[in-house]
């Protein structure tokens, strides 16, 4: 491995100062970063270990009814926080559908948001990749791209953002709190990840030295708790990234949808909020017809970036299913197979 400096600051401001120099990166649990370093994909000069910073590992209920999740809270702790899971069931379900129990125990909230794409050519230093090395080309474009993007991609990059967690978060208008060299600021999660355009190497709105300190859900996010699901189709039952996923959250009153939230995962370089679909669901009855209309709106701009046209049709079906499941009501407990199409099988056979 390339030799690097390792620093472990005690305070956020020390961390930000330590990360300001070129070649420095933050290290959280390292479940993504260390793999990238071992493969030579990331070759930082300095690791700024943030895992010992004070105060970033708390889940705080805010006076206004919102919630604030410290960047160092582990994926598992957040998902298993009973109050959190009750208030934001789709978020908990998404977290528990990701990776494996061991990884979730380690992985942090901040690291999950900023995990890198799983595009195989990005991980392979012998391949051309605009994201890894600006201007070098994109070997995925004509390569093995079955799982690549169908929305928001460009000729320069067709990679997807792999996070499950981010999908319901973006649907619920999550806000990211950032501490940077110029002080504190906050942005909508929807603004955090960038579409590739001509600069796929610029993945997020963060500037060098910016540290995510927390993610916040606004008070309104809680209003969807009764009708919120995450659905994730994957190539095996567990421990696989989404081929396509969707988070659906509804506020239903008197048989009508007052407000709908919908986001897709595994389809674009960012968690994909489908606002056009949400619009058609406002003030209508939760019917399959309405959901189908929403699905076609959500995928209206989709186009295959390679061998992945099936993902568009799959995404439509997932949207319909996720909305139907949400309309049917959040289950009392997160299913044993979270977000799985098999979540509700009981095993009975009707021959």
């Amino acid at each position, binding site marked *: 491995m390339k030799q690097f400096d390792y620093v472990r600051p005690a305070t956020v401001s020390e961390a930000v100062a330590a990360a300001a120099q070129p070649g420095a990166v933050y290290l959280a649990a390292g479940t993504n970063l260390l793999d990238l370093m071992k493969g030579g994909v990331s070759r930082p000069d300095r690791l700024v270990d943030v895992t010992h910073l004070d105060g970033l590992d708390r889940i705080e209920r805010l006076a206004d009814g919102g919630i604030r999740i410290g960047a160092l809270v582990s994926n598992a702790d957040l998902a298993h926080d009973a109050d959190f899971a009750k208030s934001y069931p789709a978020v908990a379900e998404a977290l528990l559908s990701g990776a494996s129990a061991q990884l979730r125990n380690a992985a942090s909230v901040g690291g999950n948001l900023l995990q890198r794409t799983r595009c195989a050519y990005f991980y392979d230093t012998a391949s051309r990749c605009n994201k890894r090395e600006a201007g070098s080309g994109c070997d995925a474009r004509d390569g093995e791209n*079955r799982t690549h993007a169908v929305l928001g991609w460009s000729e320069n990059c067709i990679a997807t953002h792999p996070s499950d967690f981010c999908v319901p978060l973006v649907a619920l208008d999550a806000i990211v709190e950032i501490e940077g060299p110029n002080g504190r600021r906050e942005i909508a999660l929807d603004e955090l990840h960038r579409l590739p355009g001509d600069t796929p190497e610029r993945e997020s709105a963060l500037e060098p030295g910016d540290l995510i300190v927390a993610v916040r859900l606004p008070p309104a996010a809680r209003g969807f708790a009764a009708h919120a699901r995450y659905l994730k189709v994957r190539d*095996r039952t567990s421990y696989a990234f989404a081929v396509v996923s969707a988070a659906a959250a509804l506020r239903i009153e008197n048989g009508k949808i007052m407000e709908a939230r919908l986001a897709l995962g595994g389809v674009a370089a960012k968690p994909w909020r489908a606002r056009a679909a949400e619009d058609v669901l406002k003030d209508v009855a939760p019917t399959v017809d309405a959901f189908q209309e929403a699905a076609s709106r959500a995928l209206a701009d989709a186009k295959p970036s390679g061998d992945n046209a*099936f993902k568009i049709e799959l995404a439509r079906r997932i949207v319909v299913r996720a909305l139907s499941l949400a309309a049917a009501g959040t289950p009392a407990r997160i299913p044993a197979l979270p977000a799985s199409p*098999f979540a509700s*099988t009981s*095993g*009975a056979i009707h021959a």
Partner: protein
Amino acid sequence: MPELNLTSAPAHLRHGSNIGQPLTRRDGVLKAKGQATYAADNHPPGMLFAVMAVASISRGRVTSLDVTAAKRHPGVIDVMTSNHKPELAIDPEIKTNPFVFRMEVLQSNEVRYANQPIAVVIAETLEAATEGAALLAPRYETLPALVGLDAGESFVPPVVGVGNPTENHRGDVEAGLAAADKRIDAVYETPPQYHNAMEPHAIVAAWDGDSLQIDMPTQGLMLSLARVAELFGIAHDKIHIRSPFLGGGFGSKGLMAGPPVLGIMAAKLVGKPVKLVLRREQMYGPVGHRAPTRQRLRIGTDSEGRLTALDHHARTVSSTFDDFYEPAADASHTLYAAPAIRTSHDAVRVNTGTPLFMRAPGEATGSIALESAIDEMAWACGIDPLAFRLKNYAEVEPITGKPFSSKALRACYEQGAARFGWAKRPLQPRQMRDDAGLLVGWGMGTATFPALMFQAEARAVLRRDGSGAMEIGAHDMGQGAWTALAQIAADELGLDIDHVDFKAGSSDLPDAGIAGGSAHTATAGAAIHSAGAAVIAKLADFATSDERSPLFGAGNAGVIARDGRLIRRDDESRGESYAEILARAGVAEVEARGTGAPNPAAMEEYAMHAHGAVFAEVKVDPELGQVRVTRMVGAFAAGRIVNPRMVQSQLFGGMIWGLSFALHEEAITDRRTGRIMNANLGEYHIPVNADVPPLDVITVEEHDPHVNALGIKGVGEIGITGSAGAVANAVWHATGVRVRRFPIRIEELLK
């Protein structure tokens, strides 16, 4: 190997014989405590770390390596390249016997496949060696890669598998097809797969003058030793290989591959012990894999649903520089009673590491295609798939006409079907749903694997303290040789297992042959059987020829060994202990050797195979296409079951691999470069716990007097066969969609 200390485990409960008891693994406690020493756990004093640099192109030439940069890195001791390496005694391109494969040990700058070793960096730490390898920044002259089953002109290889004829036939297939009432003609594809043993290939090599100490996982101690001896030009007795435990092998650790040879060369170059462990992605190239296949099956039936012809052709690939051909079509030789059968193969050469045997080589690939095709044929005839198989049950081996040495397949079908509840299966697909609306399908497949035997030798000892020893250079890949072979040894020595000092896993013990072909327990067991019998005979000689012994005059055939005593067959109350006999004879111990080998006469007369029937239930989301296996039942008849617990584990593992074959496993190859893009266990999917349903294994009683003295057939590989097809057929039955490209993917079920 005293450090194993296996017998410190609590004494086992024994009821009569040791064979047949479900003993737990004798090495289990060591493994659970992390005290079992795998190859890479060895750290001889002064040991250095070697890391391979591997090619990132699949065809061309290395034009430069920045050795200076690598050597400048702190901790790097040396960089072994094609220009700077110890010379071998023979050219590694020479195939000195059919079990020698060509390997890349820096003999030239040519690159023949991706992940081929191109240099080795030796350093004081693993980290320094790793960085040194990265700093080599190789440059290449790249040639267009040959990729895929249509890469070039196809040819008919001289043999497939290990010396099987490329083509076989019996009867007139074309006439049989022409006369058929119904026919199917279908093409199936299977992808390249990699063994991916949990333990990567690893070696710790230490030279002492011209003596060589090696710690290395191997399924073939003596084959490896012989190869090392010829490559380095040293005598066999100068080499000691220890391989007490393997973290899986599946065929990839059977023969000496290039990387461990590089480890030995590196140790020689620097004059210090060296450890070389492959990174996961480095296992996708130089250590073998299962070749992809495209198989065409043409089957005909008469109006009653009886087969008239079965034609099975398989296209596969080999490397550009060596020959191994997946014998996929041979799977059609034994199972179904077609009056006309033809099997044939052809191949193309691609830029890949040479394919190799991988758990059920040929049988696994061939079985999923054959069992799918049989299912399609049954459906075309409107006959239940089990009824169809029974209608076409082979009473003699179809391709040879030989009787079977034993064949309890009918019982497997019956018991498996009963346990599964197969009788309730609707004939039509897409008829069953569960209460959540998921499609439910039931499928089955027939399992088969030949009962093979290799050569082995064992040494048996009886000691004056009443204990015994059995020595054999056998291999435990996790299948349980430490336990099952010790059980056989105990019975053959007439001792309780806790009184037998069983030694294995080291090259200074008698040659146990290779742990492969599902033949290790049978082969090593046969050697143990004859060594045990021989040592008991020697002991009996002392007693029966000594007037002071109660056994005097009984003759060798007149005594039985039991519980550490010899007793008279005609009067079991008369006998004496081994210790007494040896004490009186004034010897400390008595020893004898014995061998195990195939019986050519029996092989000439009988077809020898294990069989099984596997039943699977899948659920498929009707809109989203995701599949999950929810139940599997396998009934297997494999001769004598030495240890039911371990046999069950082998069959579980095989069935899970079958599930994996049908639904998950595939090395995704970039069609432009021939490089594998998912060379890691995150994206090379194998089933995880959530994919594996409750598995139900039935071992069907079967007595086989012909396969070998112990009647053992072997269970290591058969579990994959049948299972993969059962899952694929269940997917069809659930959805009505017949997928012929494996693994079955979501997109194919969305249509």
